[in-house]
């Protein structure tokens, strides 16, 4: 992108001209002022009503942290792919869905013969493996069939393909597994609450947060230390030169998709710990939100994706209640998607590089 255009009025001073009104700037200022006013006024009004106790806020916060961890893991898939190919893998949400949805049938089989609750840790490990394997498979297949033929095409071409792939995958799995919502069987050791540092939280929430942190750390080490990780960064920096340096670009790209898929598959299992349900459309919203998270943290940055995920999760859980209850908006949690998308729009307008990403100029 170019810098803001210089004012043309200076150059053509031949005849008198009104200075052009900077519409865009005015709209932006009005927008930011009204949003800040709305957030502050809504929050103070909510806090004044005292509908929520400190414990409520705590549990909302933990809730946000947990779902934010899931977003963070999915967001890493977007960020890795974007960092290398500069394309938005719009179908990544479906990669996430494919894994958990397939693992569901394993879970049901395990629940049927009692294995799930007699060997809970082993069965969770198997579920994770199945989910990750399926997601990796789908991600790699997607790269091979849909994206690889389009390397070097104009930028919007792979994006349109990705959108097509997203719908194609959704309805493929609808065809395979049916259109119903299915509930994951309950795992007994995950029920109940723990009190950690004096804060009560659901066991599942604690596990999700810890597991996500652990996976994120593993990934960080992988990208920073291993040879594949280094070639991923090199390919992201300059594909041609990387290939001249003896890096197998195709294999590196496949590895990137596979890692993103594996994390999405793991995120899927964590997601059902929290939300318990699977359906073929389940990938869409988490996918978009994870993309928002990736943009929020600065697309291309792994730490940014994690941060963005957590921030988005918290804003989404706490935000509607905090900002909207005081404004007497009925059922504020219905408006959660508005918060997520609103953040996406605002970040892109005001901070297109995200918190930790490279500046917009460099990426373009």
């Amino acid at each position, binding site marked *: 992108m170019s810098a803001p255009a210089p004012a043309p009025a200076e150059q053509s001073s031949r005849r008198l001209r009104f200075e052009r009104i900077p519409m865009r700037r005015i709209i932006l200022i009005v927008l930011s002022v009204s949003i800040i006013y709305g957030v502050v006024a809504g929050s103070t009004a909510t806090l004044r009503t005292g509908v929520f106790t400190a414990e409520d806020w705590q549990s909302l916060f933990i809730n946000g942290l947990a779902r934010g961890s899931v977003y963070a893991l999915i967001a890493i898939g977007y960020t890795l792919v974007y960092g290398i190919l500069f394309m938005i893998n719009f179908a990544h949400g479906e990669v996430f869905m494919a894994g958990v949805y397939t693992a569901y049938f394993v879970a049901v089989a395990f629940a049927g013969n009692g294995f799930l609750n007699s060997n809970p840790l082993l069965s969770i490990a198997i579920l994770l493996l199945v989910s990750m394997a399926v997601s990796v498979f789908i991600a790699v297949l997607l790269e091979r069939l*849909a994206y690889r033929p389009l390397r070097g095409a104009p930028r919007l071409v792979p994006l349109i393909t990705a959108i097509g792939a997203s719908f194609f995958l959704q309805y493929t799995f609808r065809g395979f597994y049916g259109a119903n919502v299915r509930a994951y069987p309950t795992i007994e050791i995950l029920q109940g609450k723990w009190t950690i540092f004096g804060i009560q939280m659901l066991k599942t929430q604690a596990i999700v947060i810890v597991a996500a942190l652990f996976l994120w750390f593993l990934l960080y080490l992988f990208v920073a230390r291993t040879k594949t990780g280094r070639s991923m960064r090199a390919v992201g920096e300059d594909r041609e030169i990387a290939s001249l340096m003896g890096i197998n670009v195709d294999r590196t790209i496949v590895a990137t998709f596979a890692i993103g898929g594996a994390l999405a598959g793991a995120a899927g299992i964590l997601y059902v710990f929290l939300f318990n349900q699977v359906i073929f459309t389940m990938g869409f919203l988490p996918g978009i939100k994870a993309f928002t998270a990736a*943009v929020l943290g600065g697309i291309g940055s792994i730490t940014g994706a994690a941060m963005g995920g957590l921030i988005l999760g918290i804003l989404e859980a706490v935000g509607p209640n905090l900002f909207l209850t005081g404004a007497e908006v009925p059922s504020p949690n219905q408006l959660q998607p508005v918060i997520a998308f*609103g953040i996406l729009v605002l970040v892109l307008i005001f901070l297109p590089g995200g918190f930790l990403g490279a500046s917009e100029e460099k990426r*373009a």
Partner: protein
Amino acid sequence: MNLRSALKPGFVGGIVVVYLSAIGMVERFQDRNVITGLVGLGVVLMLVAFAITSYTAARKSDSSLLTGVAVGFISGAFVAIVTMGFEGLINAGLDVRGMFVSITPGLLETLEFGLNPVVGAFMMVVASTAVGAVSGVLVGLEYHLRSAVVFAIGITLLMSLGEPILRVTLGNLQIPTGWLYELGGLTIAGTIIVLALAFGLRWWWMSRADTRREAAAQMPEATRRTWGRASLMAAIVALVALPWIVGPFVSDVLGTVGLYVLLGLGLNIVVGYAGLLDLGYVAFFAVGAYAAAIFTSPASFLVTEEGQQFAEAGFTNLWVALPFVVIIAVVIGAAIGAPVLRLRGDYLAIVTLGFGEIIRTLVLSDWLSPYLGGAQGLTRVPAAPPSSFDLRNPQHIYYLILAFSLIAAYISYRLVDSRVGRAWAAMREDEDVAEAMGISVVRYKLLAFAMGAGVGSLGGVFFAAKIGSIFPNSFGLQVSINVLAVIILGGIGSIPGVIVGAAALVGLPELLREFGEFRLLIYGAILIAIMIFRPEGLLPNKRRQRELHEGQDLAAVDLTKEGPS
């Protein structure tokens, strides 16, 4: 030929057929007769998949017949083995349907041609090998002959699939159809006649191709233009006469197609001309529909208590509301666009998608339900006066949609080479250079966005008028994707492309109820396939085509197109 070159396409063919079966497409399509008493659409689908894989493989090989046979054999064997495998699993008492809901006894029966499993498997291999052999032979045929055969088969399929329209239409024209159609499919005699006729026509047409080309080349420019204009007029006359020929049901479908043509033309300005990928186009469609409903419905919040006593009248009537609705949409479009249009293409796409979802969430929310009706939607959108022109009558509203589509098409057509259109083209090809040449990029983007919004809202108004009540569920992301698929299939930036795209993607599925649940699957597949194999679409816009094939040999691109016809 070595066998290994047949192995991969063979497996691909097999996997494709197994996939089509596992998502339920084969069984669902089998309900429909292609040739009554002989084959259903499900079997045809399988055979076409076999044919395409063996044909493409055979074309690459130097011994086409052998390759075709080998590929067909391998595909068929693969499918047969998988079928027997599932049969075995089910016999072993495994609950296959607990996971793959589409693997039903009905499907297995189709895959076994209604015979017992072993004979059925054998039949599958025989059928696929035969199809492979035919494909191999086709590759070896001389061009004219091959083209005529493929054309004849294609036309026969279309005639069969078009049964719902054609039978009604022919009936309206007092032409008997009993000899041609039976139970939703072609009769055997009808099939033979259609095949022969189509083959003969194509053969005759192609044998005269050279003379025709010469005549066209010799024709003076003025005559050619007259001919062009005359055929355009004829097309418009045909469009006007259409609803009375095809009857109310098909007119309803035509209305829907027209609606998508209108939406497509609007999105085409944004995506095709200005090069901005807008994934939230449904937002403007929703704005149009909701604004129209609020202005006209007696249930709207604009109508006061006293007003409601005046029976079915809303705040105002549709004709008065129309310009205001469009102005509202244009303003909203500009307001949404202004802050985000500086963003780079792919970010812009996601942001617009976000706007679409925000609007849908807001419409659904309890918060705005006093104004927008929430999940209950807005009902009782009244028909507009005069009562002799009934918007609920599919044949009437078709004309309204047709008129506005023609206007939109004309405006789009005039825009392309106008100052604005050239600015858009420059911007699309290189934003920085365009800006350096003195084009105010943001202003022109905003103009495109606002124009697209206006046309989209018109679509929404007619949608509301046509249906009579609107619900939030009609305004999901899939509408945006439908419209996008329409313009991409037809060719981004091409006006005839929009029409063809809408007819193929909206018209066909409406007529083939079997497509219903696979609609978005097919759209997704089309988006992928078009982007990979023919990004300029079926009826490309010349300039766009050059942009997409920059750096490639242009002559090679042009050769893939058909000659003038």
